[in-house]
């Protein structure tokens, strides 16, 4: 798979480490046990478009939010996670 890095252009997915669903960006505040259990353990796990976190470990060390189809492996978009997080604020 080639990941279209927003700054570096198409990069081999082997340069990246995969974390999981991009919902992991929205970490709940401490104290709410049920919310933290859902955050840590439960996943939507869709068959289709999936927004997910990839870390460019062997590159510029940026976190990306990649939108990829889990049924076909087609990658439709890649954004810097800091931009996604910033836009959400």
């Amino acid at each position, binding site marked *: 798979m080639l990941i279209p890095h927003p700054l570096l252009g198409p990069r081999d997915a082997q340069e990246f480490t995969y974390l*999981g669903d991009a919902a992991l960006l929205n970490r709940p505040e401490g104290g709410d046990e049920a919310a933290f259990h859902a955050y840590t353990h439960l996943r939507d796990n869709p068959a289709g478009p999936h927004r997910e976190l990839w870390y460019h470990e062997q590159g510029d060390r940026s976190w990306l939010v990649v939108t990829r189809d*889990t*049924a076909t492996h087609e990658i439709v978009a890649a954004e810097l996670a800091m931009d996604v997080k910033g836009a959400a604020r």
Partner: protein
Amino acid sequence: MQFNGLRLLWEGLTGHKGWGPLWRDPDPKPEYDILVVGGGGHGLATAYYLASIFGQARVAVLEKGWLGSGNIGRNTTIIRSNYLLPGNEPFYEFSMKLWEGLEQEFNFNAMVSQRGILNLCHSDGQRDAFRRRGNAMLLAGADAELLDRDGVRAMYPYLNFANARFPIKGGLLQRRAGTARHDGVAWGYARGADRKGVDIIQNCEVTGFRIDGGAVRGVETTRGYIGAKKVGVAVAGSTGRVMAHAGMRLPIESHVLQAFVSEGLKPIIDGVITFGAGHFYVSQSDKGGLVFGGDIDGYNSYAQRGNLPAVEDVAECGMAILPALGRARLLRSWGGTTDMSMDGSPIIDATPVQGLYLNAGWCYGGFKATPASGYAFAHLLATGRPHDTATAFRLDRFARGCPIDENGAGAQPNLH
């Protein structure tokens, strides 16, 4: 139709004209007592034990494609019970004992072959961990032997004992482990269940659950509505998709695991060998192909095919212990979708919806568990209580802080 040697001899002399289909192809009835969703190994085993052990007469299996078209036909056929944790090991040993009597039990040749599995260790720390695991296996009634380097060399002299980075220090051997013909297991359970009155309904995809007042009433399918008192879902790989119809988010991600087979070769590996410093396992099929695999690709996938980096990684791991592998040509490779759970262990439990039960989260280790998974799930469906060996596989164990984490990797599914 009962299979036996005399019958085979007779058919051999009369042109094999007397064999009939192994199971019926019935239309769904309007209602059943118990519906099992998923006609793979675990679903068929569940139906078989429901009918044979727990006396359930009105049972059907719903399969979206053809029988055994998922992971039961895609795995690397290894059966073993070499786990460490008390929540796991008694269950897998129960499965091993069921394997040992399986073919007589359902009168079908599943080619169960107890050829032994050898886990290689490559450091002193790993040998200590294997000693501990071997002792845990013995405590659960399984067999285990710790081999030193010479013991390994006597079994497999052609392994790479000169590897400076990953020296072979010894291995943990389970002689009762081995392989089984994966399709034969599906067919044997299907035939056995059918003979006991279970309806196996193929090309019947579940598209929704009818839930009324917090209790399941039946399922919507591509062949119409089917009512049921209880529904058991055993669709590992597609669990996320199916349980989304019931509005459930689960501690599971779907990932792709690849497997490989070489061209047919003369006998070289008579057991199963695993590499301890990476993730690689290999055995040789009765046709002569080396059957091997390694890690999952590592990203969410339902595609049933993987990418080349995982192929390269598996090949490198194989070459690290078995340099002769480099001279063999790869014949085929394929992928299967696995339920990767948050702790690497499965789920066999009731769900918050009354009458709806879940069998899922088998990661890439579901094949060896097929008999015990079916037995334990049938026990749960029939009696409402978990089987004695499966009490730890609860759906709420993550919320309670009681995961069964063999690898100690935490809630990161692609690391299990």
